[in-house]
């Protein structure tokens, strides 16, 4: 079989720096041939796919007969058609010195390898039909995953779980389109090609599947990128102390002076398998101080991007008037944190709840949390509530899309499907239904890379780094 990549490429696939081992990946028609040149010991052996071999890397440029030993390594060999890229692949595991790994790459290049470009291994896997575009994107997600949930989602994507859903949509849409087309072209032959009732049923069933995928993006994004939480409130209500408790770090400077925090400060933390990005913001108040003013603007902007806003009250001196105005400007879901409440009695708390509910009937009991900057248990209670507020994140059972590209295209496919259903209900001609349906189908095919899209390179592979 002739592969898409004619040149053999190589790169260090482990992160830069010192480690226990470093892995150098070589892929292309001459992978083994070139490796044999720098590891002459391999020529003595019968090399089989999916086997590992212990050998020595030799630098023959030195005067020493047989070459100077660069490192003792383990080589894994994957035959053409049986590797991740679909090409002949050799992986060299050497000792984790940056110098040694780079020296081996130099030797490979001297012997005919080309240095791989960003994402080129994955790109070749796609070009050799080993993976589709959805799977290619999952490779990146998997590499970047920083928590259990996102790794799990990425692995499922890589295994083709999401691709299968898109492929099912592709084949269902194709069925509908083919029948609509035939009903047009055979309209004069006295043959009923498809019962409109059956067609509507089928399209509605497709709609259910497709919209499930589209809405999975919200969860998918939260799983992949983490949950974005923003602390908001008047100055000096204790937002920075809360940030420090939540992130279990001393990131924010805490002073009794109102307006200490002037800019957005971010910290991340893992909790219950998810990543949380928490932003502390400048306290909201009218101010003449230019720097603080910019900070306040940024706070509001930050709140707009939040998955959940934590609005913080000073439990000892709540300012209801300002809270009312500030909360009315927030569009994201809100949890109310009543801070500095270690000293509040149960009846005082009840009264607080009542007052809050007077402020807006939106705030249910579970949306109000009493916290204290001194109490580490606040962290669990607040982060658990954030997850509850976001709703069910069903990572295990559903196919989930996590890439913006897939999301945009699925949403377009859904819009076009809806447009065709509308035409069908308006009793418009089959050719109009077909036009929208075809656009919908093309969008699904673009997601999978089943039709040519000249932006594939830019949209999918540019985020990769070298060696992947």
């Amino acid at each position, binding site marked *: 079989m*002739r592969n898409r990549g004619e040149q053999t490429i190589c790169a260090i696939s482990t992160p830069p720096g010192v480690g226990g081992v470093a892995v150098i990946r070589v892929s292309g028609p001459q992978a083994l041939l070139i490796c044999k040149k720098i590891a002459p010991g391999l020529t003595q052996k019968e090399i089989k796919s999916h086997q590992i071999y212990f050998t020595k890397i030799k630098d023959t440029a030195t005067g020493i007969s047989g070459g100077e030993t660069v490192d003792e390594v383990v080589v894994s060999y994957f035959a053409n058609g049986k590797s991740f890229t679909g090409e002949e692949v050799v992986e060299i595991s050497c000792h984790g010195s940056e110098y040694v790994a780079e020296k081996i790459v130099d030797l490979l290049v001297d012997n005919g390898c080309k240095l791989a470009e960003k994402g080129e291994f994955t790109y070749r896997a796609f070009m050799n039909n080993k993976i589709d575009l959805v799977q290619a994107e999952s490779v990146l997600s998997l590499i970047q995953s920083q928590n259990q949930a996102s790794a799990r989602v990425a692995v499922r994507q890589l295994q083709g779980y999401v691709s299968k859903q898109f492929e099912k949509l592709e084949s269902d849409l194709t069925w509908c389109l083919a029948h609509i087309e035939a009903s047009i072209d055979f309209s004069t032959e006295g043959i009923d090609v498809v019962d409109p009732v059956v067609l509507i049923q089928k399209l509605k069933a497709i709609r259910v599947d497709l919209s499930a995928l589209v809405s999975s993006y919200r969860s998918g994004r939260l799983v992949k990128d983490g949950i974005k939480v923003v602390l908001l409130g008047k100055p000096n209500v204790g937002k920075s102390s809360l940030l420090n408790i939540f992130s279990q770090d001393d990131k924010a400077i805490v002073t009794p002076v109102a307006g200490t925090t002037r800019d957005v400060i971010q910290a991340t933390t893992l909790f219950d398998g998810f990543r949380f990005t928490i932003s502390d913001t400048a306290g909201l108040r009218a101010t003449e101080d230019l720097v603080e003013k910019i900070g306040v603007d940024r706070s509001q902007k930050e709140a707009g991007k939040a998955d959940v806003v934590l609005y913080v009250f000073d439990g000892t001196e709540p300012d209801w008037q300002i809270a009312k105005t500030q909360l009315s400007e927030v569009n994201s879901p809100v949890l109310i944190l009543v801070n500095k409440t270690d000293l509040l009695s149960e009846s005082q708390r009840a009264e607080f709840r009542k007052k809050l509910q007077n402020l807006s009937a939106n705030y249910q009991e579970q949306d109000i949390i009493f916290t204290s900057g001194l109490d580490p248990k606040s962290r669990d209670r607040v982060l658990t509530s954030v997850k509850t507020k976001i709703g069910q994140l069903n990572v295990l059972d559903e196919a989930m899309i996590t890439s913006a590209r897939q999301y945009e295209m699925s949403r377009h496919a859904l819009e076009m499907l809806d447009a065709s259903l509308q035409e069908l209900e308006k009793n418009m001609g089959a050719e*109009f239904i077909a036009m929208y349906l075809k656009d919908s189908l093309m969008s699904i095919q673009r997601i999978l890379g089943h039709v040519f899209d000249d932006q594939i390179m830019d949209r999918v592979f540019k985020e990769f780094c070298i060696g992947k």
Partner: protein
Amino acid sequence: MQAFDIIVVGAGHAGVEACLAGARLGLKTLMVTTNLDRIAYMSCNPSIGGLAKGHMVREIDILGGQMGLASDASCIQFKRLNSSRGPAVRGSRAQCDKHVYSAFQAEALKTQENLSLLGAEVKRLILNNHVCEGIVLEDGTEITAKAVIITTGTFMNGVMHFGLKQIAGGRIGDGASVGLSDQLAHYGFDVRRLKTGTPARLHKASIDWSKTAPQYGDDKFYPFSFKSKRTYQLPQIECYLSNTTEETHEIIRNNLDKSPMFSGIIEGVGPRYCPSIEDKITRFAERKTHQTFLEPEGLNTDLIYLQGISTSLPEDIQDLFLKTIPGLENVKVVRYGYAVEYDFVEPTQIFHRLETRPIAHLFLAGQINGTSGYEEAAVQGFVAGINAAHQILGKDEFILDRDQAYTGVLIDDLVTKGTREPYRMFTSRAEHRLVLREDNTIDRLHQVSKKLGITSEKELDILNTLQESRKVLKETLAASSLYPNPATNEKIVALGSTPLGKPATYEEFLRRPEVSFETLKQLSFECDYPEEVLEAIEIDVKYSGYIKKQNELIAKAKNLEQMLIPPELVYNLVKGLSNEEVDKLSRIKPRTLGQAERISGVNPSALQCLMIHLKGHHITKGSNHEDVSRPEL
């Protein structure tokens, strides 16, 4: 013998268009046919048009083609198919008096300046190092020409099958043409077999018409040609509907072993879309009946064509099963149905201009390229005629785009994908169906026609006037408004619509589904325009949203269509193509990345490789496509 500019071999629907186009462009043209009495003969169904086919007839009519005029002159029943459906899938179909049709075309040829006719059989081509320089007749006479167009239809190595009996010939009463296809095969052409069939012709007086249902044509006539009168030129007749019965199916099923298709004698592939009754019964086994139309072949003939029942079963079996069809109990068959098997040239071996790749100055058009249908043949003949002329005159090649004409879709499909069965045009083959309508043919091709120069000044004036009135009407609609005063609203309600809430232009008002120009007329809008103008503009206005959307999709697709691939590109040098892809791409030599994408077996990732290669090699925009490298024999 004296030299010609263009020689057209064959006088069928492709041949007629080809030689007229050549002669009308001022080139000295010769048509050679074995039977001068059968010019533009309707060997099968006596009708022109239908879905997507009617579109093509109108396309070449505007460009200067002949088929539309002949159909209009011989039309004895006209129907607009799908008239209740959307505008893009309506199609005109004319049943014709086949003798009037033939006579009309023969007259056109005989009176055409620059055109000579010759009754003779062409034995072979004069070929000189992969350049065609003329023809050799049966008696050895050589006639030279600068271009030769072959339009031999089903005649190349034609074999007719009547049951298990076989007779050489491309049509009943005519012999086969032997020799040409062998010569083509010798020159490396991939020559294959196809099959088509025709039903029995029945004697009018032997049919009990009371058992059939009459089918009437439309009162309103939409002639194919913009040059024709808007009224019927011949008296209009009825056709009749009957159907097969379970008994019919039983007889056919029991005798399938006597059908050459099923017994394996015929190796050619038959059309899926125009199947024989044997095919229909086998493939749609669950259907208890199939409809059939009884169509008179003309005003002064006793022959009735049995549409939908093409067959190659033996004569005695045909007699048996025909009598089970209501109305045909005592039928007398004048001519039995039969199948024809013939050679065709795999059409990926020709360029868009219909010149062959292996042999220069040789053009192929019609069934020889694997198509089925008079209309498909005619438009190819027209395009081949123009291109042969342009080549001689040193002008640019004439290629219609896929978003411009069905004719463009047809030829692009043939040369890009090839075909394994007789290719019939469908609306679904056009990805830009909504903008390829019968009513907007003039918008699509008016300017092209002007440039081509076949259509006379006087005729162009008709087109200009039509175009101008469309423009004026559209502007008037947008410029004048209706106001929601009580008097107007009362009228509007009386006309079956809902009152206006705020002022609306006539255009906006016309968008309402229940509103037509008839309504506007009642609201004192000046509607003094030809009916076809009113209809086209109404469609334009009513469907503007959809058309806009389609145009956006076209614009998206245009990116790839505008990325030209230089004809000299050596695909072996493109990194990453599979052997199969190199093979296919080198053979078909797509003009654009868009065409490459349509080649089956060329994957999206191959296009990626091609694009990278082309971007690195500065793609030339607007290169011409003269292929200089021809294989050595």
